């Protein structure tokens, strides 16, 4: 058993491969020139990589061997005539604060998340929406119940635009899914996507709802762990209620004075139920605390956290984005993350110690680990 990492960067994807020891890694670089924003492997073994070029827009490439990639002829796209969010268009256009875009259409400009279930692949996109394929990417259908839900016109974008970036599912209950949208909420459906409700009770929402990433064990799907803009939270009831769970985590001061553990990435090793996050020093700085790149690990379902920095640099001034941490789910679990300055770190001992396995890459936007 080996491992392959698909490291999505601003200018292509690094594919790192290793054997079961996960010490020596080979590197290939594919999809040159395409920002690679997410990847997934479906139940048939096909790999999908989402790309989003600033000029030529988003698309999805597929591969059966991580070497040869072919672009799909279909991609998530809104229906003509759907009204866009002026706030999102203002941010992705990096201009136009005069409201000129208020009558613009809703367009897909980036695919932020890909999520595979037993018989489908879901795509979370910006401008925020959810799409699904049930034919290995040959066609993509909008999940209208999500994309046009009541209140959708009130959604506000975050710093990266109005994006659906987190998708979770319940393998035992195909009617239940969760989708996180920055900065508008964490939504759950219990009827197969027809209706959705926002789930942030107990989360500090003084300045709005800004979920950053959520993880869980599909075998215990209703226990959720949430890295939010305003701290780290746990829910034991599928998201109905949340409690702060930051004991042992470094806390910084947000722009409004709220103190919490800010960050983006959160991941879980399912065999040991170990959790991993990469705290950053508040939304003002978005840098590792005191320059020490560190992963914080919990082995008791987020009740307590411990710093793990063995092998990580003490002078690091880059962050870890929400999609840039992954676990291979082998035994012992391998944990991987990439930084916004192009370094990839790997742990082959469930996050106890780390080694740099790639550097000099462009800004890293996504990391997914696949047992091969």
């Amino acid at each position: 058993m080996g491992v392959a990492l698909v490291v999505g960067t601003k200018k292509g994807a690094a594919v790192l491969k290793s054997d079961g020891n996960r010490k020596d890694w080979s590197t290939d670089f594919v999809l040159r020139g395409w920002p690679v924003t997410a990847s997934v492997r479906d139940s048939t073994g096909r790999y999908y990589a989402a790309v989003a070029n600033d000029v030529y827009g988003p698309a999805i490439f597929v591969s059966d061997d991580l070497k040869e990639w072919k672009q799909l002829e279909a991609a998530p796209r809104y229906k003509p005539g759907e009204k866009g969010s002026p706030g999102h268009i203002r941010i992705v256009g990096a201009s136009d604060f005069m409201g000129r875009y208020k009558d613009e259409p809703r367009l897909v400009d980036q695919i932020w998340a890909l999520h595979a279930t037993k018989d489908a692949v879901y795509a979370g996109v910006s401008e925020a929406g959810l799409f699904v394929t049930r034919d290995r990417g040959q066609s993509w259908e909008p999940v209208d119940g999500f994309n046009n839900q009541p209140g959708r016109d009130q959604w506000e974008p975050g710093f990266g635009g109005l994006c659906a970036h987190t998708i979770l599912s319940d393998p035992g209950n195909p009617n239940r899914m969760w989708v996180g949208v920055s900065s508008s909420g964490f939504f759950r459906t219990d009827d197969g996507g027809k209706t959705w409700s926002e789930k942030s009770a107990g989360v500090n929402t003084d300045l709005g709802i800004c979920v950053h990433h959520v993880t869980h064990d599909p075998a215990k799907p209703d226990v959720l762990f949430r890295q939010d803009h305003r701290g780290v939270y746990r829910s034991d009831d599928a998201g109905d209620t949340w409690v702060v769970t930051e004991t042992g985590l470094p806390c910084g001061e947000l722009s409004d004075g709220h103190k919490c553990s800010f960050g983006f990435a959160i991941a879980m090793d399912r065999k040991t139920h170990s959790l991993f996050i990469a705290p950053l020093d508040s939304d003002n700085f978005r840098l590792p605390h005191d320059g020490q790149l560190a992963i914080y690990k919990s082995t008791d379902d987020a009740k307590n956290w411990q710093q793990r920095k063995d092998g990580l640099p003490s002078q690091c001034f880059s962050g870890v984005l929400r999609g840039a941490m992954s676990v291979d789910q082998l035994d012992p679990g391998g944990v991987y993350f990439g930084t916004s300055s192009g370094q990839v770190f790997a742990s082959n001992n469930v996050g106890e110690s780390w080694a740099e396995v790639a550097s000099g890459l462009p800004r890293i936007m996504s990391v997914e680990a696949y047992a091969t």
Partner: protein
Amino acid sequence: MIRVQVPPVLRAVTGGARTLEADGTTVREVFEDIAKKHPALGLHLFDERSGIRRNIICVHRDTVVRPDEMAERKVDQGEELVLANAFAGG
């Protein structure tokens, strides 16, 4: 037949082809024919509203043609278009 030169990043979509051939009497019609013959490439030329993406340009008879001019710009048989992206960055 019009020849269209494809920029390097899009050659990942054309199987490495540097040029494509298409029919049409305007730049937009040529792009529409490309999208019909090469649907994967069409995703990169047109957005959901069937508009040509904002930052695409093409060079025709040594002049730059912008998206809002492409439906009007006439092309003659045997001519060449260079598909490109607008300058961005410093």
